[in-house]
């Protein structure tokens, strides 16, 4: 029997990036807010301090900061003819857990999406005609533009202190930045990170081939910075322990460094950790949420009544929470009807290894999660897709994030996989190899979706989320074309041997690719093809807002976090300035 707690104005499900941002905006507007976090409380001191935080076996291999999949995981299959099985060890993607969420263990790569990403369908039809979109993909527009989001990107980047170089200031092109970006109101808050040697080789080679290299925008900071919340961050020390780790130096933007210390002091805010939300409760008609039910670490059940429910639990959990709570119509692939779980997308990544002679010293250990040089010449619609027969694109960059000893041992493709020859090759190539990343878009497909698993349940007896996914032919074509372009750059860098591997199907769940899971609670202007309106408000239950990469109708070439932050501020703005004054549907 659940204990009923006193009603609060708002509850956030998850206290990661979204929960922290919304917690701050809503308490500032005078609301009493409770943040429910399923994981443990964590802080830079003491939890992320050295030397233990550099324990590669613990954090990279045993994945200590990730969601506990002995209690709660995802089942997976490539297509509807297969039976999905639970993922018992995270491989392809790494969902975080705990206070601060995945924004604790991210790399800090902080790009804006382009306007052409937000208008993928209409732009494709305008430029290439309706027939250019094949039947295996379901691209759609977001219902917002880059101009709508610009002030919110700006605000988020200044909260984080992002280090970078503008390429377009209010319509004026600026040398050294990304020439393809949409106009931004002002420069990045801090200058770009130092350029590593391998990235400099990439810059010269790419510029020589006529491309437009620029420094990757980074939330590991190039110099000390005090954000508008009054919190000071320090300079990145280039230790190379970012993704899968917390930052000991207060140098990586995460809720712990940019906002939580302020939020936790707010008397209107209450944080509860180790609280597993089971469902959002609805009134008799199912039109309004009345609060949530959760279980604490001692196994006691509580009902927390709330007038406003913010779902910010990471893309996959956002989808599952709506399905468990009966909010919105689940997507049915057989009929194409329904929306919750529809348009699940991912990221189509590949790599090119550039093997140098021994007098080229790459020093991969002197890196950071986001430092390096990239080109956007093949991103989004920055090039003519006409001859190629695919939509979407990828950025290409020398953005190596580490040279950690257990994980990083590049060897040429013809090397034995173990034994003395393999060891010799590791010694020969460790310090003389650059890895180019090809970070590609993922276009939604009617075949790729999320629903509740019919068989497997979590530790609380609730059905697991089931993922059905494989790369659409469109994305494999994209990967083949752009990986080849990256190989050309690798040869121009002076590589003695250049080994590219375009992404090929089938999608494998056991090889790490990226944690950029998107879609499933898509935003849009049409309730028939979206779960939330353009303000991220549920079409069906107007006091539920769902925020995160689950809002993406499909995934773009760039990393998603900047857009998640911008969407969170965009939704918060609508909530505070419109919804609170007159609760009800915003669209």
């Amino acid at each position, binding site marked *: 029997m659940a204990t009923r707690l006193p009603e609060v104005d708002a509850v956030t499900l998850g206290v990661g990036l979204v929960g922290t941002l919304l917690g701050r905006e809503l308490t500032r507007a005078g609301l009493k807010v409770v943040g429910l976090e399923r994981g443990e409380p964590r802080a830079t001191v003491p939890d992320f301090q050295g030397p233990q935080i550099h324990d590669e076996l613990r954090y990279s*291999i045993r994945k200590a900061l990730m969601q*506990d999949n002995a209690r709660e995981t995802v089942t997976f299959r490539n297509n509807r003819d297969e039976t999905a099985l639970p993922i018992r060890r995270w491989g392809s993607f790494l969902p975080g857990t705990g206070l601060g969420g995945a924004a604790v263990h991210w790399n800090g790569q902080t790009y804006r999406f382009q306007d052409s990403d937000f208008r993928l369908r209409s732009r494709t039809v305008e430029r290439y005609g309706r027939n250019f979109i094949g039947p295996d993909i379901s691209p759609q527009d977001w219902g917002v533009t880059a101009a709508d989001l610009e002030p919110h990107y700006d605000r988020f980047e200044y909260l984080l202190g992002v280090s970078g170089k503008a390429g377009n200031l209010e319509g004026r092109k600026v040398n050294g930045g990304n020439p393809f970006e949409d106009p931004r109101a002002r420069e990045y808050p801090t200058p770009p990170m130092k350029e590593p040697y391998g990235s400099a080789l990439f810059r010269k080679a790419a510029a020589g081939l006529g491309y437009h290299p620029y420094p990757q925008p980074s939330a590991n900071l190039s110099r000390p910075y005090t954000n508008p919340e009054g919190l000071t961050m320090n300079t990145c020390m280039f230790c190379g322990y970012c993704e899968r780790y917390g930052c000991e130096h207060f140098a990586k933007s995460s809720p712990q460094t940019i906002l939580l210390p302020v939020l936790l002091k707010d008397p209107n805010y209450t944080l509860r950790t180790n609280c597993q939300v089971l469902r959002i409760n609805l009134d008799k008609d199912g039109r309004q949420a009345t609060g949530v039910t959760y279980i604490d670490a001692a196994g006691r059940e509580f009902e927390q009544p709330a007038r406003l429910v913010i779902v910010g639990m990471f893309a996959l959990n956002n989808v599952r929470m709506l399905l468990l709570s009966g909010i919105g119509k689940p997507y049915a692939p057989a009929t194409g009807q329904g929306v919750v779980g529809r348009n699940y997308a991912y990221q189509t*990544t590949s790599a090119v290894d550039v093997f140098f002679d021994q007098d080229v010293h790459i020093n991969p250990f002197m890196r950071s999660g986001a430092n390096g040089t990239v080109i956007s010449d093949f991103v989004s619609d920055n090039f003519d897709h006409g001859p190629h027969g695919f939509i979407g694109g990828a950025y290409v960059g020398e953005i190596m994030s580490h040279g950690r000893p257990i994980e990083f041992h590049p060897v040429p493709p013809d090397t034995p996989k173990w034994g003395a020859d393999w060891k010799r090759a590791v010694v020969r190539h460790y310090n003389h190899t650059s890895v180019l990343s090809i970070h590609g878009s993922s276009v939604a497909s009617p075949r790729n979706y999320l629903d509740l698993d019919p068989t497997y349940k979590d530790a609380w007896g609730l059905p697991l989320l089931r993922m059905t996914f494989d790369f659409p032919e469109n994305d494999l074509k994209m990967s083949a074309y752009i990986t080849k372009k990256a190989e050309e750059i690798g040869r121009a860098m002076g590589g003695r041997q250049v080994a590219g591997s375009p992404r090929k199907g089938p999608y494998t769940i056991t090889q790490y690719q990226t944690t950029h899971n998107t879609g499933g609670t898509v935003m849009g202007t049409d309730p028939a093809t979206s779960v939330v309106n353009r303000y991220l408000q549920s079409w069906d239950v107007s006091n539920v807002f769902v925020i995160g990469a689950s809002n993406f109708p499909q995934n773009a070439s760039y990393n998603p976090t900047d857009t998640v932050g911008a969407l969170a501020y965009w939704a918060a703005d609508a909530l505070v300035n419109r919804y609170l004054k007159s609760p009800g549907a915003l669209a």
Partner: protein
Amino acid sequence: MNSMEFVMLLALLGRPAHAAETPRPTLPQGVIACESCHGGQGQGNPAVGAPRIAGQPAAYLARQLESFADGSRHNPTMAPIAKSLDDKTREALAAYYSTLAVPYGPPEKRAKNPVDRGKRLARVGDGERAIQACGNCHGPDGIGEPPSYPYLAGLHRDYLVATLRAWRDGSRRNDASGQMPIIAKRMKDDEIEAVAAYYAAARPPAPGIHRPMRPAPAVPRGNAGDDDGGNPPPPSGGTGIEQGEPTTGGSQGPGGGGAANPRQNR
């Protein structure tokens, strides 16, 4: 005479003439012997505020000489000396002292309490004021992380206090990252004393002896939630999340695949 011999001479200058049977090199104007303050083996002299420099990384020592010369590390004694040395001599001196190993004196006796407080700051930091642990850069127990980060273990207490104050008041501003001024400004006087006392009493492991790294001492975990929901204190250490896995493949860049990827489709 090779350059190392030259440097030894420079460092020893001021000793009785019989020490040098080879012709004395021409020395830059104003140079006085390092050893008159830093000791014959670079062991330092707390009475004159001269730190131990034996065994500090060469790159670190060279950078300090450069900083004394350009004013980014203010010191009225060292400035004229450093200014009189050319780059090559600075590097040679730094290389020479980096190779010296000299026994430590007995630890300075201090009350236990400030040492314990200093140990906490040095190894764990202070979350409330966003002070990170010294050990993140200066190594476990302050043994240093060459080539950039000096060891702190066994440096004299007064020197450590003085240099932390110099970071705080801006008379020392020669770290590339700008971390040290931020950290020092957040430290109170008694904390500076406590950290200095801790490191002054610490001793690095003897050469060749491997001392396994230890995790930071157990302390209460981060920002706890309120207890409306009656949460028990969260477990410390490992959670159910940790999972074994073959140590193949791994990440490089945003899912680039690194080592594993090029072979994936073959």
